[in-house]
């Protein structure tokens, strides 16, 4: 044993360090997927510049993963406190609906050219949509922290009622937006890259800064590891829990704006359908423990990219897209089982 260690030298210790890093597994999974794409899909890694924009499969994947990445960032914090938020999809539908209804678009003839004008100034409309999302988060947080309901039940209420409320607002219709500037958020380009990516990067950066440079990250971890001990240690657990749900809802609200801006409409029935499941999946894939306490923001982003790459791969290989769900579920089973202590013990016993 010692001889082997000595001969392998510094190289081996670097490898063991890399393997034991918490991002190793998600990155390896993404790497394997990309390798499969590289081997099977011709021109997968080709990037070209058309009309000043960067085009290519990779850009497409990252762009399409943007709403999921936002939702996953919010979900990470909730799961880190031992919670879960299954109302993400409903919040997406609600915020998209509010924004689309307020902006809408009326046709005005300017200098003989038909131009669409927003019914409400766009910034106010977007603020209102985010405000609605914040209210949703406050509601979830109050139920979990104030009433002490189990998170899955507390957010189930909004999941059931939220879409109903959104449909109530639109009278069950799909709301179409005609106002051009609104589309920039979901399909615009900045410096040749999709604008949505800058939004995700900004949210990720601010969140990571908050977690690293304030005590917030530590508090969240403490609450996730042992809520009672955290409260006894003087952490205002209730306020913290309300905060993470509000934060998750804000992320979902932004994702809702992005989705409705991308499809230029709001469909209360289908917008963000099953997004909560994908977000939970992304967070789990990224190595965040569902038991709380151990979390990784970067891991969740990688998780979201894995999901989107998987979807892209399945589509481009010509496999029926329905297989996607089966593959996803098998991946969840495998990841969860491999995370469990029982499995690790089994593995250790086998190796010993």
């Amino acid at each position: 044993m010692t001889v082997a260690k000595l001969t392998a030298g510094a190289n081996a210790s670097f490898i063991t360090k890399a393997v034991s890093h918490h991002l190793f597994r998600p990155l390896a999974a993404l790497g394997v997927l990309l390798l499969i794409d590289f081997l099977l899909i011709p021109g997968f890694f080709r990037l070209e510049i058309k009309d000043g924009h960067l085009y290519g499969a990779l850009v497409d994947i990252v762009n399409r993963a943007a709403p999921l990445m936002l939702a996953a960032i919010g979900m990470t914090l909730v799961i880190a406190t031992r919670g879960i938020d299954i109302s993400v999809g409903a919040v997406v539908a609600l915020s998209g609906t509010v924004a689309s209804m307020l902006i809408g678009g009326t046709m005005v003839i300017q200098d003989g050219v038909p131009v669409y004008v927003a019914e409400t100034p766009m910034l106010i409309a977007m603020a209102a949509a985010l405000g609605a999302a914040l209210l949703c988060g406050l509601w979830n947080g109050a139920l979990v922290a104030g009433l002490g309901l189990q998170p899955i039940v507390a957010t189930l209420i909004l999941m059931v009622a939220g879409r109903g409320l959104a449909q109530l607002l639109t009278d069950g219709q799909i709301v179409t937006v005609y106002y051009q500037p609104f589309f920039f958020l979901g399909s615009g380009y900045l410096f040749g890259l999709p604008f949505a990516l800058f939004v995700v990067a900004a949210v990720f950066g601010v969140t990571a800064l908050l977690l690293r440079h304030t005590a917030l990250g530590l508090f969240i971890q403490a609450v996730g590891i042992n809520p009672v001990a955290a409260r006894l240690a003087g952490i205002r657990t209730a306020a913290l829990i309300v905060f993470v749900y509000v934060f998750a809802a804000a992320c979902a609200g932004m994702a809702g704006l992005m989705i409705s801006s991308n499809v230029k409409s709001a469909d209360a029935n289908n917008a963000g359908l099953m997004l909560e499941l994908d977000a939970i999946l992304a967070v789990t894939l990224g190595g965040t423990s569902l038991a709380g306490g151990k979390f990784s923001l970067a891991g969740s982003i990688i998780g979201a990219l894995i999901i989107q790459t998987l979807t892209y791969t399945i589509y481009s290989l010509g496999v029926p897209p329905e297989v996607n769900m089966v593959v996803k579920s098998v991946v969840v089973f495998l990841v969860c089982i491999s995370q469990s202590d029982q499995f690790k013990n089994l593995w250790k016993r086998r190796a010993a």
Partner: protein
Amino acid sequence: MSARLHHARRLSKAPSFTSMVTVVLLGAMLLVGGALYEGFLSLQVMLNLLIDNAFLLVIAIGMGFVILSGGIDLSVGAVLALSTMIAAWLLQVAHWPPLAVIAIVLLLGAAFGGGMGAIIHYFRLQPFIVTLAGMFLARGLCYLISIESITIEDPLFVAMSQTQIEFFGAFISPGALIALGMLAFAIWLAHYSGFGRAVYAVGGNEQSAAMMGLSVGRTKMAVYAFSGFCASLAGLLFAFYMLSGYGLHAQGTELDAIAAVVIGGTLLTGGYGYIAGALSGVLVLGTIQTLIAFDGTLSSWWTRIVIGGLLFVFCVVQRVMSFKSK
């Protein structure tokens, strides 16, 4: 006066309080409906509540057991859809005899549930994430069989769908009778069998149950297998009702079932509640839908909003009750 107050206070603390609230609520809703709309309180409308919600009742029974054991099963709606799909495919494409199809579908449902239960138990995973993955898997498998809806033309299934059994001048469907039979069996199972007692014990406190010598693992697996069985039976009832198999059938049914169980007075933390509550919960949900249908001016999304509101009220009542008892 004080005696009456004392009595009222004792009543509100009684274990069956939320269940009684639900029954009173159901009665009140029916009376309001009867007062507002002509013909609402007819026997046929009441029986239609059962006919239209037979599948939901069966699913809620299975969900009731799972929640009593302290778990949750999010896969039931997807298993229902998968069952309709497998039944339709075996009947229409493989031309199996209908009775064999029914047996196979029920077996597969129980095996699917039992498999999830085994993963939950052996790897100590949260039921919610495992059954969520199960939901993805079952829906995905539906589409692997066929993306389109498959119409069922088997004579037995058609007969089950069209038979109307006379009942005091009104009629009831065989599916509703099967659901009621299942309810009777489940009440016996929960309150008069060793399995039922084990489920309550595991839901009340898993460690105590294990120390008492109960086989926690076997009980948990059996509970999920039972829920899977109920979901596939509900799938068959749904197939009788719709005469088709389709991957998009019964979306969101798991939420309705959870709502029905909670409204029926079962504590979400497990170990406490009545299986019969599933019936009152399902009837409350069905009555809301019927009221909205009778009104005609209210749109369908009001159903979701009202169910969400009811869920909220009942969760709050449950919490307040458990605060009091502490």
